[in-house]
């Protein structure tokens, strides 16, 4: 927590190093979440820029009722939802959206049609390992970007940024049960994508 306290104080003072640290830590995830809400990369980019300005201008008043990441993503999701409403778009997420487990992998009795095969070198896979011409990390990022919007937003906020479940539910207007289902579906979909390249 001390690290975060120092980081917030430095941010409030407009310290470049502190801002760069926070920016590099969160910017890509913020773009993903904003795009999931707005369904429009150009609008998402603008909302993310505006959110960073809010973060810089309001860091001094940050009251520590959440983590720094929780605060930043609350600013972002509020800004994205306002923008969506202004643009006349729906902001509600569909908790029943398709995707997740590959149902075709099972027969009528629920058994594997074809047993999952061990991934090549499964025990020593690292994010940097190159498979099929790309780093594992790049395969994962591409698969995340292809997830349906609600699954993508939940995966980033809960699965990656590790925000509190209640915070994520409030940001996306989801019940905790639906949020969990979306998160599980997202991870199952990612595993299916990775299985295809391994």
């Amino acid at each position, binding site marked *: 927590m001390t690290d975060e306290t120092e980081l917030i104080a430095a941010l409030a003072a407009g310290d470049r190093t502190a801002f760069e640290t926070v920016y*590099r830590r969160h910017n890509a995830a913020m773009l993903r979440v904003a795009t999931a809400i707005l369904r429009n990369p150009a609008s998402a980019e603008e909302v993310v820029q505006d959110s*960073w*300005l809010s973060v810089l201008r309001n860091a001094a008043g940050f009251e520590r009722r959440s983590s720094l990441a929780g605060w930043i993503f609350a600013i972002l999701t509020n800004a994205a939802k306002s923008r969506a409403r202004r643009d006349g778009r729906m902001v509600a997420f569909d908790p029943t959206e398709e995707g997740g487990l590959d149902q075709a992998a099972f027969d009528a009795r*629920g058994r594997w049609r074809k047993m999952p095969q061990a991934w090549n070198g499964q025990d020593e*896979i690292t994010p940097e390992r190159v498979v099929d011409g790309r780093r594992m*990390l790049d395969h*994962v990022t591409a698969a*995340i970007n292809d997830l349906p919007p609600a699954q993508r937003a939940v995966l*980033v906020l809960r699965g990656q940024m590790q925000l509190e479940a209640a915070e994520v539910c409030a940001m996306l207007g989801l019940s905790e049960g639906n949020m969990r289902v979306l998160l599980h579906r997202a*991870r199952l979909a990612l595993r299916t994508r990775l299985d295809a390249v391994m």
Partner: protein
Amino acid sequence: MLNCRDFAEQADALIDEELGPWQAMRLRLHLSACKGCARFFEQLRLTRRLSEAATAPGTDGDDGETARIDALLAAARGGVGGGAGGDG
């Protein structure tokens, strides 16, 4: 009787310890007896680790970022009308 599809559908909830003790035990029992599901389970764990690693700072880094960071800092300073330095 719990089948492979039931197991796969609930495997991520099992990792997150969201299942009741009875259901978790049924899944673990299936896991210990089914080689395909054991592979699936390990791959799901690995997928989770990789997706968490995909947020590491700098993974999306590019040269334009430095310029954007500077522009945002300048805009924030300009926008507060000098108020940020008021206490110092």
